[in-house]
């Protein structure tokens, strides 16, 4: 299978025309047609019936998941809720956040939901930026290392990562910035 899979989601407001993917030009038209009809179409019906009539005894070969209407059998109501949740978590604060590091040429993005603690987040950031972030202490901040992680909270203030409980942090963190320790010193002292 060379063609990249296009998830079939009847409630997607995705603009398929601008979506980057492999596939023959114009091949997205089929998917559009399928999604706009209320559940009568199946893409590979032709493929199916020839398979069946030719090889009566052989196993039935099903179409790819994404092209199948009404499968998996999740009710519309639940599907809608999941879509809303997905949109929320993608656009709300505290999930995918931009991370900048002083001196690095471009920004990265991390999904905070993937981590369950500050320790895990630090490990992730250190791996991503190949830097060293020292140990956190309430009194000293991030002493003993080149870098200190900071974040911008919902109010627009820049805070030192680690002061508040993890759950509060992920619900208020809008972006991260890994500062040079010398510049971060001001944040730690108060």
């Amino acid at each position, binding site marked *: 299978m060379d063609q990249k899979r296009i*998830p079939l989601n009847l409630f997607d407001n995705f603009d398929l025309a601008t979506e980057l993917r492999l596939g023959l030009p114009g091949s997205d038209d089929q998917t559009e047609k399928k999604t706009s009809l209320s559940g009568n179409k199946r893409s590979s*019906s032709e493929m199916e019936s020839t398979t069946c009539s030719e090889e009566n005894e052989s196993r039935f070969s099903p179409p790819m*998941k994404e092209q199948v209407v009404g499968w998996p059998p999740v009710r519309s109501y639940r599907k809608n809720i999941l879509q809303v949740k997905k949109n929320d978590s993608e656009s709300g604060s505290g999930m995918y956040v931009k991370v900048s590091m002083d001196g690095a040429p471009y920004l990265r993005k991390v999904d905070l939901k993937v981590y369950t603690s500050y320790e895990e987040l630090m490990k992730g950031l250190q791996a991503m930026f190949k830097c060293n972030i020292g140990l956190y202490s309430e009194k000293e901040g991030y002493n003993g290392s080149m870098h200190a992680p900071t974040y911008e909270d919902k109010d627009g203030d820049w805070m030192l990562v680690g002061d508040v409980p993890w759950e509060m942090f992920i619900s208020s963190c809008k972006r991260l910035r890994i500062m040079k320790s010398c510049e971060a010193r001001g944040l730690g002292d108060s």
Partner: protein
Amino acid sequence: MDPNKKRVDSLFPDEVLERVLSLITTHKDRSSISLVSKSWYNAERWSRRHVFIGNCYSVSPQIVAKRFPNIRSVTIKGKPRFSDFNLVPDDWGADVFPWLSVFATVYPFLEELRLKRMVVSDESLEFLATKFVGFRNLSLMSCDGFSTDGLKAVATHCKNLTELDIQENGIEDLGGHWLSCFPESLTSLEILNFASLNSEVSFDALEKLVSRCKSLRVLKVNRNISLDQLQKLLLHAPQLMELGTGTFMQELVSGPLTELKNAFSNCKNLLTLSGLWDATPLYLPVIYPACARLTFLNLSYATLRSVELANLLAHCKSLRRLWLLDTVGDKGLEAVGSCCPLLEELRVFPADPFDEEMNLGVTEVGFISVSRGCPKLHYTLYFCRQMTNSAVVAVAQNCPDFTHFRLCIMTPGQPDYITKEPMDEGFGAIVKTCTKIQRLAVSGLLTDRTFEYIGKYAKNLETLSVAFAGSSDLGMEYVLGCPKLRKLEIRDCPFGNAALLSGLMKYESMRSLWMSACNVTMNGCRVLAKQRPMLNVEVIKDEESDDSQAHKVYVYRTVAGPRRDAPPFVLTL
């Protein structure tokens, strides 16, 4: 005439018989009673208060009205179940209005209406609210065709309303004003469920409503109700037995957590908890004081991880029913197995059914852990991306009391992912070991062998759902041999006319048969229709499909004859 029979009849005057029979409530028992003798048939029909109509087209409102003169409560189910998954076009039918207009004349004292998969318009709701003076209980599940304006009519006019239960409907949400339409004089509400409505209601109106309805025992609010607001509601209604919360996350406010925890602690009768939208480890602990008493916990809208779930379940030792999202993973299910020995029902829904890169979900490992720790499990709905035969065999052995086994391996036609074999032996073990099995949904790669097992062993099977399975007509022929089969729904299987017609003598003893994207032709359907006039054989035409193929077939027994309200794309043969 049999002398014994005469004696019995004279010992039991009709009034006494009716009195006795009025204590019999289940419709199956009443059906049996009505078959005993003519006088019992009459006594039964006069004393029946509740009628259950499993398929709205199997009978007409006039026939129901004629047989049962004293009905106070009606339950009607409409569209075929696969309409939940968009397989039935809009405008297919199942309009409730024809029923209501007959009921208005015959049952002016109707008190209760429970509808599932019916089309309900605002006009119907207004008609209901205004024509039935003593109307008390309205439950709408998976219905469509109405808006919040219809709810306004119900709230405004039903002076004695005790239940308003609106679940998962295709409703046009025009705002939350409907709730403010309950008059100040309404104090009778016992059940209020608006969890699936999206717009915000007036909290002030809701709070007042909750405080004046002292008998309120079920309250399920929607996501717009905050934790602070929930706390206030709980203070007014500590007698609640079932609670659906609103959002379970908010900006940290100083110190309300103990108060919220106390509010939950004061709900001594709480047995069911749902909602919990956006629940995080920060706020979940407030429900801990109520957990020990809970018998049903619905976490299927809370994206919890395994650790959060484990911490929560440690407090829930009385759980009988648990609904989860698969974000909890196998580790979460391990916690279920260790914390909930009394568990009878487990449903695990997929958080990302269409995008497997997001999260793996649960696997055969989790399934086995639950079965080990919960031997009383008898109902499961399990969505997963991988499964093995040996796991299903183990589950069957650990939980031999299954009555409802619905396993959905999400990729169609997927084999046992370790052995690459079909899942025949797994499902075979279920039907062999779990002799009480009543409802079965199969998935994964399945040959005719699965159906052979089902036909041979599933003596109590009533409902079977099949998708992307089977190798030949034999598959369907086998399952039509199940003695108690009532509902058979099939999609995307290689079953053709021979299979369809093998059930010729069977379909009248069933409620319905659905077959879509199979190999049935119009001719096959015509043969069936001709031979069995007591069945409606309906084909839903597809614009694009070949005229000779019957793309969607719905067959059901009926005493009402062919549908008179069928849209142009539904052909009754």
